[in-house]
């Protein structure tokens, strides 16, 4: 089985991001970038499929700046076979432009399965996976938490409000992965060394302008300090009064 996993370079969720002087992008100085955590589930799932089958190939595809090679190599260190970077100076805000570029690359690859994380933790768009599926005219199951594949068919489970949805699909297909699907492995030290020697093809990629533009970024409003209204049961009347009159939640 030939599996493509599309991954994105994103700022670490623990870094404190600053808004750049243009007011609409991030100041990348001192920011640590990581492999998007939802994409880790996709990489892990692909590796398990290949290990289970005892054969196959896992190809990592990313669209991003030259530094995204590092992100690809993280996935190679986990055990993927080779990588392709669609190199662009910037990742457009319009997911459709990203999907078009990825779609063109994936189409040529004849993959049995294309995996994405369900979303990237920088823009929270949940878009690119399903868009690629549409462009390639392939079935798509999003946010899967369980997967089985046998005889050219797959069954995936999605956790939906109050229950589980079971979806059957035929291959090739596009899937996006959710937390709970698996426990991603650490890139072991030998894997990190081996990743240096694995093929990583860099393809300069021209992107359309897209039809979305980010106008402004602003940090969330500062939270006000909390207030202690008293102790024990004696504080309850005052708390109720404040919740009713000031916070207006009762």
């Amino acid at each position, binding site marked *: 089985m030939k599996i493509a996993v599309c991954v994105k370079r994103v700022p670490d969720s*623990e870094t404190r991001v600053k808004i750049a002087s243009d007011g609409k992008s991030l100041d990348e100085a001192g920011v640590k970038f990581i492999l998007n955590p939802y994409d880790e589930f996709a990489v892990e799932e692909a590796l398990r499929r290949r290990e289970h089958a005892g054969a196959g190939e896992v190809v990592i595809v990313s669209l991003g700046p030259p530094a995204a090679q*590092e992100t690809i*190599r*993280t996935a190679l*260190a986990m055990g993927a076979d080779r990588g392709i970077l669609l190199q662009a100076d910037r990742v457009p805000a319009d997911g459709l432009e990203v999907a078009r570029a990825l779609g063109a690359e994936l189409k040529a690859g004849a993959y049995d399965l294309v995996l994405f994380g369900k979303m990237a933790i920088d823009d929270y768009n949940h878009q690119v996976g399903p868009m690629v599926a549409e462009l390639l005219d392939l079935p798509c199951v999003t946010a899967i938490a369980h997967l089985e594949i046998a005889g050219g068919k797959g069954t995936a489970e999605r956790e939906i409000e109050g229950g589980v949805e079971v979806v059957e699909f035929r291959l090739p297909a596009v899937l996006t992965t959710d937390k709970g699907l698996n426990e991603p492995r*650490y*890139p*072991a*030290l*030998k894997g*990190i*060394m081996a990743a*240096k020697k694995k093929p990583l093809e860099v393809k300069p990629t021209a992107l359309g302008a897209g039809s979305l533009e980010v106008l402004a970024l602003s940090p969330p409003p500062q939270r006000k300090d909390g207030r202690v209204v008293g102790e024990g049961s004696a504080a309850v009347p005052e708390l109720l009064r404040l919740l009713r009159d000031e916070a207006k939640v009762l």
Partner: protein
Amino acid sequence: MTKFQGVDFYDVDGLLSEEERAVRDTVRQWVDDNLMPVIAEHYLAGGFPKHLVPQMAELGLFGANLPEEYGCAGLNNVAYGLIMQELERGDSGVRSFASVQGALVMYPIHAFGSDEQKRHWLPKMASGEVIGCFGLTEPDYGSNPAGMITVARESESGWILNGAKMWITNGSTAQVAIVWAKTGKPDDVESIRGFIVPTDANGFSAQDQKGKLSLRASDTSELVLQDVCVAKDALLPKSGGLKSPLLCLTQARYGIAWGAVGAAMACYDEAVGYAKTRVMFGKPIGGFQLQQARLAEMLTEVTKAQLLCLQLGRLKDQGKVTPQQVSLAKRNNVNIATDIARETRRLLGANGILAEYQAMRHLANLESVYTYEGTHDIHTLILGQEITGLNAFN
């Protein structure tokens, strides 16, 4: 639990290669996920968290700077140092475990062993299937191992060892011990050789040392060898003289210099977090000059120690490092780490004495690290001799 972000005031990260950073990040994450949640309980119980050994092996943490042909990761010495740093950020006991396995057992087998010995032992040790210990110190010979009285006599069928070793990390856990013994007269230092001794051999016993108030998450044992017979091929053929165990110590001290930076970073990080959030006299204690002076001092020393390690590692990778340079780094970094741990403990007030926080555990641990692998004083004498050409040991 929040992820540890490290301390990097001088963009030392920018001096690391992509692989070096990737190695560091993997170990850092592993420590956050698997060691931090359990370390306090193992420290209090007084035992090494053995359940972590298979995971450490799978990551490739044992003998990580030894060649891939023996199942090791084949990393450079800077990446190896970063592993030690991250492990000791968690706990000195866990770093000690990895140091002993890699620098004190796998290294001598690699450096002084036959091809046969290397092929037999190294892959099993890299995979954690076999745990090793290193027996040099004796009850009456600590700083002066040249005086050791453990002896090995050649017999028809092999070697017979007699003696006692003390303060041996992993001694009761190990399946194999590297034992240093004299094969000649009691004053013949040149006759010191290394032996690979299976710990289940007749006459070999290991007893854990009780009542430790430091390095509690590490097992430390006394070894007794009473007419222990081993085969001829237990001898490390290329070992000879005190310089052989000292070469091992240089490897381990190199890792300790890095490890101390990890413990220092952990404490500094804890101190900063606490100083910003603990409110006294109406404002965070970090807003008082006395605490700011503490923090400024800590950051300065951490940063200096980081740069010291990195250059030491680069020299080692170029094959240019001297044992005296390693002594300087071990001496300085363990000393400043101990100071930083103590200052953090004090900054934390009463909370600083709890196992829930890290500072006092690191402080107590670092007192062992200060003493083992050449005490602080001994490294002072090594440097003194290097500077003056005069021996002040005896």
